[in-house]
C-alpha cells in the first residue's frame, strides 16, 4: 500500500483533493445551478418533444413546453416576473432617470465609493510625493562600490528566492494539472457551478420551441429567466474574482483577434504576391525598406510554392483516386534521400524509365509479365490509364511526372530561396508516417526555439544564372537552376546600366555583363520550372533606382514596386489602451530615473532593482507585445517595367513577427568593412578634430578634397606661396 502511494505523483492527491473541494462546493454552495441545469434539460426535452409533435403530428397542443414557464427556484423580487409589471417598471425607470432627485441620490450613493477613492487618492499622492522626495535624496547620494548589493537588496533577494521557489512549485503544479487534463475537468465543473451551461441549454430549448410555435408572447419569460440565471452566475463569485477572470478573458480575446488580424494581413500580402509576375523589381532610397520587402516577398513566395505544390498533389490524388500514392511517396523519398532524384530533370528521367519498362513488360504479355510492378501495383486494367478533365485526357505517366515534381517541391528540406544575402526560413516539415505536413505559420513560432527549426537561403552563385560566359569556367553549378526564388539585393551594383558597362566588350574572353547572357535566365525561367502549368520561379531584385539598370532587364520585370514610405508602428491587437496609457506615463520617467541612477550609482540598490523589475518589466512587456503583434504598412507605388504606366498605390503589410525575427542582416556586407578596418590601428576617435569654428588652412588641407586641392593650386599660382611656408605660418600661429 505504501509503495502505491510512493509510486503515484503526490500532485495527483492535490488534484483529487481540489476536485473533491469543487464537488463539495457544488453541493453546498452552487446547488441552485444544478437545479437550474436539471430544469434546462427538462426544457430541452419538452421543447424537443413539442418540436417533433408539431412537425410530425400536426399539433403539439397536448405537449407542455416547460421552457415557457419560470423556474421553480425563488428569486425574490430581483426582476418583475410578468411583462405588464416590467412595462410599468420601465416607464417608472425612464421617468426617474431624468429627475434631479434621482441623480442627487445617485451622487449621494456613489459618494461612498468616491470617499474610498478619495482616501486612496490622497494617500497615493502623499505616498508618491514623500517617496519621490526620499527617493530623490537616495538617488542623488553617490555610491561608487561597483556591483555591490546594498543590505536591503540582499535581504529582498533572499525573500524573493524563497517566494520564487514557491512560485516555481505552483507553476509546475499548474502545468501538471494541464498535462493530466485536470484543468479541463475543473473548467467543466465551474461551467456548471457558475450556471453557464443552463444558460446555453435554455437558448437551445427555446429555439426548438420557437421554430415550432412562433410564440413571441413568451419571449419575456425567456428574458426573465436569463436575468435570473445571470444573477445566479454573477453572485457565484465575489466581484474581484470576476474582475480578474474578465481581464484574463479579455486578454485571451484580444490575442485571438490579433492573431486573426495578422493572418488576414498575411493573406492580403499573399494575394498581392500572387498577382506579381516572374520578375519583380523593388526600388526605394537608402533605408527605404526595399530589402525588407524583398525578403518578406521571398518568404511569402516560398510559402506559396509549398501550398501550390500540395494543391497539385491533392489534384492528382483526387483524379487517380485508386493509385497507391503512399508507395510512390516512399520510392520518391528514398530516391531523394539517396540523391538519385535531385532535380526536375532527374525526376522526369526516372518516370520516363518507369514508363519504358512498363510498356516493355506490357508488350511481352507473357505469363510472367507484371507491368503493374513498374507503376507501384496500380490496377490499370480495372481503373484505367487516364483521367478526363473535360479539356483533355491526363495520362497516368503525365500525372506521375507532375505529382513527383510537386512532391519534390513540397517535401524539400531546405530553402527554395537562392539569394546573394542570407535569409532565415522556418517552415516546419512535420514528418510522421507518409507525407510530411508543412507548417508556415509565421506568427506562432517560439522565438526561444528559433535555432531548432531555422534554415537559411541558398547561396546565389551568379554563374547559375549566366547562360553565356561564366566567371568560373565550366562551373559545376552552371545550368543547374530549375526552380526557386532568386532574391538579389543591390542588383544595380552587380549589373549596372548602359553607362556603367560602356568600356566592356561582348567578345571579351572573360565573363562580363554584356556576354554572360544573364537576362536569358529570367526570360526563360518559366520553361525550366513549370509544374502543372504553374511556374515555380520568381526573380526579386532590389535596387535604389530602376534607371540604374539596363532597359532590357528592367522591362523583363512586369512590376516595379517603388516603396514610397510607410505608416509604421501599428498594433494588430485591440483593447491595448490601458497599457498604451501606462507606457506614456512610465517610459519617459523610467528613462530619466535610469539616467540619474546610472549617473550616481555604481552599486545595486533595492529601489533600482525594483524599478527595473516592475517598470522595466512593464516596458519589456509593452515592447514584446509590439514585436509580436506590431506591423508597418508600406505604401507602394506599382508601375510596369517600362516605367510608362501611371503607378497604382498598394499597401503591403510588414508584420514584425514575420519580417523582423532575425530574417536577414541589414548589414549583410559588413565583413568587408570589418576586415579592412581590423588591419588599421585607428578609429573615428583618432581622427584629428577642428580647432575652432573656422577651419585653418592646414585643417582644410588635411581633408584631401579635390575642391580644396584645386583652391590651393589657384592660390599657389597667384601668391606663389608654397606649402612649406604655409606650414611654418601655421606652426607659428599655434
Amino acid at each position, binding site marked *: 500500500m505504501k509503495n502505491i502511494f510512493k509510486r503515484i505523483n503526490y500532485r495527483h492527491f492535490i488534484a483529487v483533493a481540489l476536485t473533491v473541494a469543487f464537488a463539495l462546493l457544488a453541493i453546498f454552495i452552487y446547488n441552485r445551478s444544478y437545479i437550474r441545469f436539471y430544469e434546462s434539460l427538462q426544457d430541452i426535452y419538452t421543447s424537443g418533444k413539442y418540436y417533433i409533435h408539431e412537425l410530425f403530428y400536426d399539433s403539439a397542443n397536448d405537449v407542455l413546453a416547460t421552457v415557457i414557464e419560470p423556474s421553480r427556484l425563488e428569486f425574490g423580487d430581483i426582476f418583475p416576473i410578468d411583462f405588464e409589471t416590467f412595462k410599468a*417598471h420601465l416607464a*417608472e425607470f425612464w421617468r426617474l432617470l431624468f429627475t434631479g432627485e*434621482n441623480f442627487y441620490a*445617485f451622487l449621494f*450613493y456613489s459618494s461612498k465609493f468616491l470617499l474610498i477613492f478619495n482616501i486612496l487618492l490622497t494617500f497615493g499622492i502623499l505616498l508618491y510625493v514623500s517617496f519621490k522626495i526620499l527617493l530623490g535624496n537616495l538617488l542623488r547620494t553617490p555610491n561608487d562600490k561597483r556591483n555591490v548589493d546594498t543590505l536591503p537588496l540582499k535581504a529582498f533577494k533572499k525573500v524573493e528566492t524563497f517566494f520564487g521557489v514557491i512560485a516555481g512549485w505552483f507553476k509546475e503544479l499548474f502545468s501538471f494539472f494541464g498535462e493530466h487534463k485536470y484543468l479541463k475537468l475543473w473548467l467543466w465543473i465551474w461551467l456548471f457551478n457558475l450556471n453557464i451551461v443552463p444558460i446555453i441549454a435554455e437558448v437551445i430549448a427555446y429555439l426548438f420551441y420557437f421554430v415550432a410555435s412562433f410564440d413571441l408572447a413568451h419571449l419575456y419569460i425567456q428574458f426573465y429567466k436569463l436575468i435570473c440565471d445571470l444573477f445566479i452566475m454573477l453572485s457565484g463569485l465575489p466581484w474581484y474574482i470576476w474582475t480578474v477572470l474578465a481581464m484574463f478573458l479579455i486578454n485571451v480575446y484580444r490575442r485571438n483577434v490579433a492573431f486573426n488580424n495578422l493572418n488576414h494581413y498575411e493573406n492580403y500580402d499573399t494575394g498581392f504576391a500572387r498577382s506579381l509576375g516572374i520578375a519583380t523589381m523593388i526600388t526605394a532610397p537608402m533605408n527605404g525598406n526595399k530589402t525588407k520587402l524583398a525578403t518578406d516577398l521571398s518568404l511569402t513566395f516560398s510559402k506559396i510554392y509549398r501550398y501550390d505544390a500540395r494543391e497539385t498533389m491533392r489534384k492528382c490524388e483526387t483524379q487517380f483516386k485508386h493509385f497507391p500514392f503512399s508507395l510512390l511517396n516512399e520510392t520518391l523519398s528514398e530516391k531523394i534521400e539517396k540523391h538519385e532524384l535531385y532535380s526536375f530533370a532527374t525526376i522526369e528521367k526516372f518516370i520516363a524509365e518507369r514508363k519504358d519498362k512498363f510498356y516493355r513488360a506490357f508488350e511481352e504479355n507473357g505469363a510472367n509479365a507484371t507491368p503493374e510492378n513498374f507503376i507501384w501495383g496500380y490496377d490499370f486494367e480495372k481503373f484505367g490509364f487516364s483521367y478526363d478533365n473535360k479539356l483533355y485526357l491526363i495520362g497516368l505517366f503525365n500525372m506521375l511526372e507532375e505529382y513527383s515534381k510537386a512532391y519534390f517541391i513540397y517535401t524539400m528540406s531546405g530553402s527554395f530561396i537562392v539569394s546573394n544575402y542570407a535569409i532565415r526560413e522556418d517552415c516546419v516539415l512535420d514528418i510522421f508516417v507518409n507525407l510530411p505536413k508543412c507548417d508556415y505559420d509565421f506568427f506562432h513560432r517560439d522565438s526561444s526555439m528559433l535555432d531548432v527549426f531555422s534554415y537559411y537561403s541558398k547561396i546565389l552563385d551568379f554563374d547559375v544564372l549566366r547562360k553565356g560566359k561564366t566567371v568560373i569556367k565550366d562551373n559545376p553549378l552552371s545550368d543547374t537552376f530549375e526552380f526557386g526564388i532568386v532574391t538579389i539585393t543591390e542588383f544595380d551594383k552587380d549589373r549596372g546600366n548602359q553607362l556603367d558597362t560602356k568600356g566592356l566588350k561582348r567578345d571579351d574572353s572573360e565573363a562580363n555583363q554584356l556576354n554572360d547572357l544573364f537576362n536569358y535566365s529570367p526570360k526563360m525561367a518559366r520553361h525550366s520550372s513549370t509544374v502543372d502549368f504553374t511556374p515555380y520561379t520568381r526573380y526579386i531584385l532590389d535596387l535604389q533606382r530602376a534607371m540604374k539598370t539596363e532597359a532590357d532587364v528592367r522591362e523583363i520585370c512586369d512590376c516595379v514596386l517603388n516603396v514610397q514610405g510607410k505608416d509604421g508602428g501599428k498594433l494588430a491587437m485591440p483593447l491595448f*489602451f490601458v497599457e498604451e*496609457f501606462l*507606457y*506614456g506615463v512610465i517610459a519617459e520617467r523610467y528613462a530619466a530615473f535610469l539616467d540619474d541612477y546610472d549617473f550616481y550609482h555604481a552599486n545595486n540598490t533595492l529601489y533600482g532593482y525594483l524599478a527595473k523589475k516592475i517598470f522595466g518589466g512593464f516596458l519589456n512587456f509593452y515592447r514584446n507585445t509590439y514585436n509580436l503583434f506590431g506591423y508597418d504598412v508600406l505604401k507602394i507605388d506599382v508601375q510596369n517595367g517600362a516605367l510608362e504606366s501611371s503607378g497604382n498605390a498598394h499597401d503591403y503589410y510588414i508584420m514584425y513577427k514575420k519580417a523582423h525575427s532575425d530574417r536577414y542582416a541589414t548589414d549583410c556586407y559588413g565583413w568587408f568593412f570589418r576586415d579592412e578596418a581590423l588591419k588599421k590601428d585607428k578609429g573615428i576617435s583618432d581622427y584629428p578634430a577642428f580647432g575652432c569654428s573656422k577651419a585653418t588652412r592646414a585643417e582644410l588641407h588635411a581633408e584631401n578634397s579635390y575642391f580644396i586641392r584645386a583652391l590651393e593650386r589657384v592660390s599657389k599660382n597667384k601668391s606663389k606661396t608654397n606649402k612649406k611656408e604655409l606650414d611654418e605660418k601655421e606652426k607659428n600661429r599655434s
Partner: protein
Amino acid sequence: MNNKKFIFAILKIALLIIGVVILAYLFFTWGQVKL
C-alpha cells in the same frame, strides 16, 4: 513617447470611465424603481 497613441489612450480611458458611470447610474435607477 508616441504622443498620438498616448492621447488616444487617455480618450479611450475617459470613455471607459464615462461608460462605467452611465451603466452604474442606469443600474442604480433601476434599483430605485418602486411601484
